[in-house]
């Protein structure tokens, strides 16, 4: 049936007066931007024009507005059997289709350093590092879709032996279109925390790292991922109390606010869901999710979802919240209780209070995956 229809199209269109090549470029961009990544990369091979259009900022903007959130993982190759390093992208379409393995896409990268792994992402570009505090520290920014990568210069050597636990943040200022990488260092002595230090590097502007002042007020320990949202970096800091901290990428200033006491004790995790900031924490009985109800109001944390007894679902180690689906379900990933090398995608329905695991398991390297929208804009465009 399908075959014959295709034939009919070919026959009737044998000598078409107007072809796809007659469409204005902005419409061709519009059409291409509606495709999945697999199809976009197939279209790059069709003709030069289509390939060139995928490099246009106009196309990148359209594509970004239409693309679904994706999981992006990095698998480090090894030089023993010469296996390559690659990024793998899983586009999370709504409704969720995760049955076939070929819904993911792989992008090879030459980036290989021992122990290098994904640290952060920003606008679909990835920050890789070996998280070393020593001379062999490597920090790389990659854009998988554009096959671009940039190895940052080495940050200044740490003066004191006690300055350890380096953490990296990666953010973008929409108003200046600048990408910045931050490195935080602090003492690893929990009982006598010293002050947090920070260096910053603006891609395409700086030749070397700049030291940031203004860090005296910040809690000396960072106990969460450093995540990017709306032109700022956010993390959870601890110094006696727990704080939510942020860094304004454009203006380069820090702020920190104590977390309200109604958020339970212990570790809290920070995630971005649908452009909003969420905290979550758990014990064996409950997972609790708190939303910052009024964006920018650091006192407005509101309990949004509670998942009771997650242990009965044979899952633990919630990895991250991803997004809410159109029907209100909440999409998330967590570790498989039976097989630590597997990552499970699941959805939680707040109405029925049922957590449903997707049959599709993601193998080993997905546990460190980031959630972001792959993007044809690249930080490396500033490097010309």
């Amino acid at each position, binding site marked *: 049936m399908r075959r014959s229809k295709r034939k009919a199209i070919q026959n009737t269109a044998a000598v078409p007066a107007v072809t796809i090549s007659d469409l204005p470029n902005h419409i061709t961009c519009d059409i291409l931007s509606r495709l999945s990544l697999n199809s976009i990369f197939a279209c790059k091979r069709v003709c030069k024009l289509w*390939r060139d259009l995928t490099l246009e900022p106009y196309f990148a903007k359209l594509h970004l507005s239409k693309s679904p959130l994706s999981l992006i993982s990095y698998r480090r190759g090894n030089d023993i059997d010469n296996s390559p390093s690659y990024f793998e992208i899983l586009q999370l379409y709504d409704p969720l289709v995760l049955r076939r393995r070929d819904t993911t896409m792989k992008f090879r990268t030459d980036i290989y350093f021992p122990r290098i792994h994904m640290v952060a992402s920003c606008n679909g570009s990835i920050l890789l590092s070996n998280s070393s505090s020593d001379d062999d520290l490597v920090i790389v920014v990659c854009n998988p879709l554009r096959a671009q990568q940039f190895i940052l210069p080495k940050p200044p050597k740490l003066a004191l032996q006690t300055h350890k636990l380096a953490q990296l943040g990666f953010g973008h200022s929409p108003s200046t279109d600048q990408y910045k990488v931050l490195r935080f260092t602090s003492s690893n002595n929990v009982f006598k925390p010293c002050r947090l230090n920070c260096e910053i590097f603006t891609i395409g502007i700086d030749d070397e790292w700049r030291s940031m002042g203004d860090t005296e007020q910040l809690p000396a320990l960072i106990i969460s991922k450093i995540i990017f949202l709306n032109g700022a970096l956010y993390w959870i800091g601890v110094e006696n109390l727990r704080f939510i901290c942020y860094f304004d990428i454009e203006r380069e200033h820090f702020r920190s606010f104590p977390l309200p006491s109604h958020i339970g004790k212990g570790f809290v995790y920070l995630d971005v869901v649908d452009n909003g900031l969420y905290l979550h924490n758990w014990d064996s009985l409950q997972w609790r999710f708190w939303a910052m109800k009024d964006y920018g109001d650091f006192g407005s944390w509101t309990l949004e979802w509670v998942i009771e007894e997650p242990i009965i679902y044979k899952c633990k180690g919630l990895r991250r919240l991803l997004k809410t689906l159109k029907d209100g379900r909440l999409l998330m990933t967590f570790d498989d209780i039976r097989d630590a090398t597997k990552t499970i995608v699941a959805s939680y329905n707040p109405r029925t209070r049922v957590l449903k695991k997707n049959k599709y398991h993601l193998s080993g390297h997905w546990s460190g995956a980031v959630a972001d929208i792959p993007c044809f804009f690249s930080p490396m465009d500033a490097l010309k």
Partner: protein
Amino acid sequence: MASSIENNNEKLTLKSSDGEEFLVEKHVALQSTLLQNMLDSDCSSADVIPLPKIDARTLALVLGYCKKHADASSSKQGELNSFDSEFLKDMDMGALFNLVLAANFMEIKGLLDIAAQKIADTIKDKPHQEVREIFHVENDYTPEEEAAVREENRWAFEGFP
């Protein structure tokens, strides 16, 4: 003039590139931002509005779409959706591209949107050779360039075991 726009019975005449004239109710024509702007700026004093880039067959299709969308009330979204999907269903590619060009020229956002989506759906999940064939796109890559693009794309298509 605002007063004349409110008058639903008023009609205007559109002329296709091949000389055919279409009498259209004003509220139907208003689906087109181009025509709306013309009417707003009172350029409509001419008896006939020529549309030199759009042939009669395409214009008839465009106006069919506009009429349906102008007449349907907002409560009938489901009906409009099924109309939209039927509207393009068995259309050949040549007609579809003409429709895209017309929708683009006349600035009919909804029509442009469904037509672009229809073309995207046709491209979807097909290898590049098949896309070239269906759309009669000439391969203008030299063998060397083609090899380079293939290399660029290699990891997009080869699965790992």
